[in-house]
């Protein structure tokens, strides 16, 4: 008995001893590489492509942060995390930043001691069903078997939705998106529920995508964003403003292609600050003067990243919707860069 208690304490404390409490920025700079927690595989958001290179909407934000901090968008080590392991990986210092379509919630922010520094995708939870099931509304799903990823907010929303509508369901809990798709396609569940963006991504990878529909009900708010450890404000600021820089770049029409030209010719004071030409903005956060310029140059502005990975020209085909800039009726709004 003594032995087990001892080994338990040993295991518990090695987990904790791994936590890094030094400034994350210094660690990343010393390492010369950013460690970014991403999804184990969600096409369009974070997944390795055929040649093993990580691609996606979340992945490009990782690359932008890496470009800003260490100067090279390729200097990123991607650590795949499941719904269950992601926050532990972040809290223990295994990853520097978690950009893994994770929903910002009160308890994650306050109790799990995470800081969600931005919202890079405004999402909501939906249901994917086979067309021949003959269902046109989520409220008709009484008695259905539902595939649900464990350790997620969607798990709790699902229970709330069915309870509120006074209908019942049988859950089939799965670990990640690929297992959920396998179970759903094998008919082990009638419907698969997760963020609507994730469903669109899942449908895009299915061989018979046209035989599946996403039901019209969006049953929750899922603001997805990058998370960092609570208490390291400088690092949180860097991730937040890297994201804001990408938004401002879209607002000002700065793209991957024209960034050098804009930098050399612009007279707009905000663009000049963003490009590191005046105001000494980068060094305030412990970065180089042109850090945010490099971030934009890495994968383009927010709109370019969106279109390249999940936009209407891709198989996933998501509309900008809530994720359009505030000037175009969306919610993406960056604070002034001054």
């Amino acid at each position, binding site marked *: 008995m003594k032995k087990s208690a001892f080994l338990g304490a040993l295991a518990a404390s090695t987990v*904790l*001893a791994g936590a890094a409490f030094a400034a994350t920025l210094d660690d990343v700079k010393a390492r010369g590489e950013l460690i970014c927690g991403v999804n184990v595989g969600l096409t369009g958001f974070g997944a390795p492509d055929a040649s093993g290179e990580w691609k996606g909407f979340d992945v490009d934000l990782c690359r932008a942060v890496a470009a800003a901090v260490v100067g090279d968008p390729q200097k990123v080590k991607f650590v795949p995390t499941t719904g269950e392991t992601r926050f532990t990986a972040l809290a223990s210092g295994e990853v520097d930043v978690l950009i893994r379509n994770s929903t910002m919630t009160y308890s994650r922010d306050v109790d799990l001691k995470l800081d969600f520094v931005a919202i890079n995708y405004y999402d909501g939870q939906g249901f994917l069903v086979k067309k021949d099931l003959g269902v046109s509304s989520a409220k008709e*799903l009484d008695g259905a078997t539902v595939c649900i990823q*464990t*350790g997620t907010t969607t798990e*709790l929303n699902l229970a709330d939705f069915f309870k509120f509508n006074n209908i019942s369901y049988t859950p*089939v809990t799965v670990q990640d998106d690929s297992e959920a798709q396998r179970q759903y396609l094998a008919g082990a569940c009638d419907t698969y529920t997760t963020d609507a963006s994730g469903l669109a991504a899942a449908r895009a990878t299915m061989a018979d995508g046209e035989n599946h529909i996403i039901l019209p009900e969006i049953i929750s708010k899922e603001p997805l964003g990058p998370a960092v450890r609570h208490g390291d404000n400088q690092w949180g600021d860097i991730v937040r403003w890297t994201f804001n820089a990408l938004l401002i770049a879209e607002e000002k029409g700065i793209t991957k292609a024209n960034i050098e030209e804009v930098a050399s010719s612009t007279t707009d004071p905000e663009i000049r600050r963003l490009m590191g030409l005046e105001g000494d903005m980068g060094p305030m956060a412990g970065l180089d003067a042109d850090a945010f310029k490099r971030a934009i140059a890495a994968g383009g502005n927010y709109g370019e990243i969106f279109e390249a990975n999940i936009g209407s020209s891709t198989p996933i085909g998501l509309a900008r919707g809530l994720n359009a800039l505030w000037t175009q009726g969306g919610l993406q709004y960056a604070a002034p860069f001054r």
Partner: protein
Amino acid sequence: MTLATSTPSGAAKEGFRLSMLVYDTRFRAITIQVVVLILFLLLVGWLVDNTIQNLAAKDKDINFGFLWVRAGYDIEQQLIPYTNDSTHGRAVIVGLLNTLVIAIFGCVLATIIGVLAGVLRLSRNWLVSRLMTIYVEAFRNVPLLLWIILVFVVTSETQPAPNEFKVTQAMVDSWATEDTSDDIYPAASKILFGTAAVTNRGSYVATPVLDRPLGGTTIGSVPVNFSVLATIAVIVASVLANKLLLRRARAVQEETGIRPVTWWKSLLILFGPIVLLLLAMGFHLQLPAFAADENGVSKGFNFQGGILVQHSFTALLIALSLYTGAFIAEIVRAGILAISRGQTEAAFALGLRPGRTMSLIILPQALRVIIPPLISQYLNLTKNTSLGIAVSYLDLRGTLGGITLNQTGRELECMLLMMLTYLIISLIISGAMNLYNNAVKLKER
């Protein structure tokens, strides 16, 4: 310890010097133990201190209050009533019961399989003994996790989906016409006279239902069902009565040499009262079936009525029993081989048939060798139930160490609680088996 007596009396007069702690064999053993104990306590102290400091640095505390908070998630297999409004604590108990049910069924099945395979492996029949060797080697030498996943995939992917059991409007229409040649039927049908349906989601089996139950009450927060209690009481009483009958028969046999005929009395005593009780309570089976409209067209997504046995449960149970059974088979074989050949020969000389020799002479003696390693196998099986996470079986690991841990973010508390629970279960099993071992072991007088 002969040292004390063999020490010359002169040494005692010398008195105690510090160097004796190292150089005197009388004290050296104690010195080493004290030093090791101090080092061990220092290490434990350092670990606890490290944990507390790290928790403080992350602004986290150790708090088990989350166990009384609403869980908010659902569990597919629940042996006690549970909804998403229940607390995390109740979810933990649901998970614990799911662990225990697998462990209990698994231990029983593994023992049956193991004893059979162990005995058959020693069979003189070449084919039977070789087949058992193949079974034992195949299961012992492949990781358990792979077996669990294999059984799960086979059970879930080879079976029809529930909607293949459904009756559609087209089918009803085809039956309405005179012409029977164009009749169409559902692609899949139930088995065992309609009492069970095996789908790719799990097996739906008929539920026992009572028309006139005896009611129930709650003592504290534990629900008590009188119907179940009455059934158990009647069964126990019948078994005891039957034992009494057999004892009397043996007494008569020993006195007169003639054994009275008891089989029909036994049958009557064992089954008569329970059948009467069930009839009185209006017992019948509720068959799994789809809800249907007035024309007989099936509605809904799944079978209604009947108990759903998840494939995760089936897969875990089968894989665990076969895997552990292979180890038990080897233990049983070793136990039998440990019994002297003379015992068998003596039994044969008395005219006992081989089967009776095995069950009356060899196995009871072999049990003494078998029980201690069998305890470890039971413990292994119980701990291995936590592999159910691979097939999404929500046992203690899945609820407390999975969803609850994730939704509350209390890693340390959940892990400590889970380790403590597994420890307690293991100690109980080991304690019970040690009691049994004491009962069957060779009594020396």
